[in-house]
């Protein structure tokens, strides 16, 4: 009921039902579905199993319709962002969750409208033969489940393309991430799940679904955070969900063999989204002004429960919370390494071989975030110049990649030492991550942790330096 009373849902659906696109899309979809059915059936009269062809064609139709809804939602959100109407929603006291939730609900409503146009034709396929009822039901479920992620992605891309807080690099990386997750998820549900190491197949489904829901939730809060970065933030849930997702991937997904988290063939790519997420979110969390937006501070003050206050402290918005979160991620990796390698025996070794090692790449993302940051802390010129710090950090990464490329091409590093290039740049870590034959990460989760400790020490040193300067009466 709360969703139905959402003001944005009311506005967007009213706009959509009154607009020209509604009629065009609705009747267009009906017309195209009917045309496809008739043309395939009449064109191949007497042939058996026609339903398969019609079914495939209708799936493309529905996919295209979903794309249209997503594009329309994207354009609408971009326009609203440019007109600064989100500010007016904020002034009304509407929460960021209600804004993004309302937008998502209205887009989903539009999709469901079209979806039910096509469903009768899907059952016509069953009548024609060539396709089973279960595959029709499964496809319908995939569409309904994938739609929120897809629509959230369109909202996210609209918001991220208009916010000044994110660079083109960040945008490109996020788009790449979005492209990777969808096929992994679809593959996980469409291809029969396999049991692994005695785990039941349903475990695969549950872990995959849980992971997918967390990814959607993460995307949802990322959208919320982009609505008004200057006054409000959703860093806390983002950090919390990211940590939970990571723990779930290692403890549930990898042993279960979920496709979302990595079948044997997709093991490397499956960890790439997480690698990217940690790198990008860390990049914009660690190297940013230390201040917490006004509304986030007010929410913190209003928390009464000690547990919630402690959780808030740990994942608090700002660089300190980001460093603590990254440290926790490293700690989870270390624990997993220990659990799989020492405690589980042969099963654990298989688990580790399957997923543990590639996920160590994530700790390298943390290393690449924290290590240059620690070095840059010592440079007074870069203080309070976050953009400059980010730029210098990027230069570190690019130079590291160039150096690694030279070392590899000149065969200075070869064989089992190839894993060492992962230390030089996050780009090389990705290379190591995707190189199935040489996937090795020296030091396991410890480089990331060590770099975070180094960053923390340098930050303390800087604080002390400021303290001394303040005592001496010098401006810090």
């Amino acid at each position, binding site marked *: 009921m709360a969703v139905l009373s959402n003001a944005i849902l009311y506005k967007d659906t009213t706009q959509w039902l009154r607009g020209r696109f509604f009629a065009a899309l609705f009747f267009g979809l009906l017309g195209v579905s009917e045309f496809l059915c008739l043309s395939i059936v009449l064109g191949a009269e007497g042939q058996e199993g026609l339903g398969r062809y019609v079914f495939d064609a209708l799936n493309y139709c529905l996919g295209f319709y979903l794309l249209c809804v997503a594009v329309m939602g994207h354009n609408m959100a971009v326009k609203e962002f440019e007109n600064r109407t989100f500010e007016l929603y904020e002034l009304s006291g509407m929460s960021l969750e209600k804004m993004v939730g309302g937008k998502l609900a209205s887009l989903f409503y539009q999709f469901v409208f079209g979806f039910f146009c096509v469903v009768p034709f899907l059952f016509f396929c069953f009548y024609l033969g060539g396709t089973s009822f279960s595959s029709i039901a499964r496809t319908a479920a995939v569409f309904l489940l994938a739609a929120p992620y897809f629509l959230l992605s369109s909202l996210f891309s609209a918001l991220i393309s208009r916010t000044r807080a994110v660079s083109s690099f960040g945008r490109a990386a996020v788009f790449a991430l979005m492209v990777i997750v969808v096929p992994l998820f679809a593959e996980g549900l469409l291809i029969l799940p396999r049991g692994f190491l005695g785990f039941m197949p349903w475990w695969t489904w549950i872990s995959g679904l849980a992971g997918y829901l967390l990814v959607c939730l993460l995307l949802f809060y990322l959208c919320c955070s982009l609505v008004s970065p200057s*006054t409000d933030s959703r860093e806390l849930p983002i950090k919390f969900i990211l940590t939970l997702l990571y723990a779930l991937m290692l403890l549930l997904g990898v042993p279960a063999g979920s496709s979302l988290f990595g079948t044997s063939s997709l093991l490397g790519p499956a960890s790439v989204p997480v690698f990217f997420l940690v790198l990008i979110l860390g990049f914009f969390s660690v190297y940013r002004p230390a201040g917490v*937006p006004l509304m986030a501070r*007010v929410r913190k003050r209003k928390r009464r429960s000690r547990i919630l206050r402690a959780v808030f402290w740990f994942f608090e918005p700002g660089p300190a919370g980001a460093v603590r979160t990254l440290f926790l991620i490293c700690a989870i990796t270390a624990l997993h390494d220990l659990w799989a390698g020492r405690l589980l025996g042969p099963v654990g070794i298989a688990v580790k071989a399957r997923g543990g090692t590639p996920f160590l790449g994530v700790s390298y993302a943390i290393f690449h975030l924290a290590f240059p940051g620690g070095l840059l802390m010592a440079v007074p010129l870069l203080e309070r110049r976050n953009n400059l710090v980010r730029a210098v950090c990027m230069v570190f990464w690019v130079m590291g990649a160039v150096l690694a490329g030279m070392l590899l091409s000149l065969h200075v590093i070869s064989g089992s030492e190839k894993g060492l290039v992962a230390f030089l740049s996050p780009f090389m870590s990705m290379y190591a991550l995707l190189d199935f034959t040489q996937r090795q990460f020296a030091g396991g989760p410890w480089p990331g942790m060590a770099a975070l400790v180094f960053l923390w020490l340098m930050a303390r040193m800087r604080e002390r330096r400021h303290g001394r300067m303040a005592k001496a009466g010098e401006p810090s």
Partner: protein
Amino acid sequence: MTAGEMLIVEGLSKRFDGVLAVDRLSFALPRGSVCGFVGPNGAGKTTTMRIAATLEEPDAGQVLVDGMNILEEPYKVRRSIGFMPDHFGVYPDLTCQDYLEFYARAYEVNPRVRPGRISAIMEFTGLDRIAEKKVETLSKGMKQRLNLSRALVNDPVLLILDEPAAGLDPHARIEFRYMVKSLAEQGKTIFISSHILADLGEICDLILIIDNGARVSFGSFAQMQESLSPEARFTVRLVSGDGLEGLERFLLERPGVQKVAPGLNGSISFTYTGELSEIPALLSEMLGQGFAVVEFRQEAMTMESVFLKITKPNG
């Protein structure tokens, strides 16, 4: 703070990328007052208004709205203000009625009260006749009315209006002025920025002038006029220009009369340094001497001249 003040700004400062947008600005608006906010482009007006509306965070200083600190209770502050920004976001395919219905829902106005409040606001702003017209087809003036209606949906005690008259034709400006006056009569405090100074001079009890983010002048228009031009200057116009020389001689002989100078269309201007209560006697003496006076008025500084004199004292 006194109970009679609706908006208090103390030592407000804000920087953007190293540029000081607002510089230790302080002022207070009494309840029910209309305050015109004037300054050159880039003076920091919009930033100040956005800070008061909790859309920006100040670097220093404090802002109290109805006794609530914007940094302590931003949610409550948001509920008690109506903000009309200088931009207007149009939603295609929505009617005026839908638009206000949407914002009333956003403000979580009680569904039982909602229809009555929306129709009352539409009646007040004159939108009731075009309730079913689509927003994107409205004229600029009508859009501004709708924008004002939106700002009124939550029945705010403080209205912050950023450039509401920009781009309006004279008719729309006059109508808008009436609406602002009427809202002030209802007891709402109005903080309004505009470059159309003549409008502000007419509707505002107080004028706040800022330049480079800092306060230059604050007070009533009459106070500003008096402070800038302490001497009273008068203009006398005769039926024809024939008696001008005689009038000039007459005035120069009177005590307190200075700086006599011929003006346009058979008029003469002079400065009077004596008591203003003696002016009627001077006028009757003038008439007694046979001067055919058709106009006798005190010259007042216009809002434009006050603004120019304050912001460019040497210009």
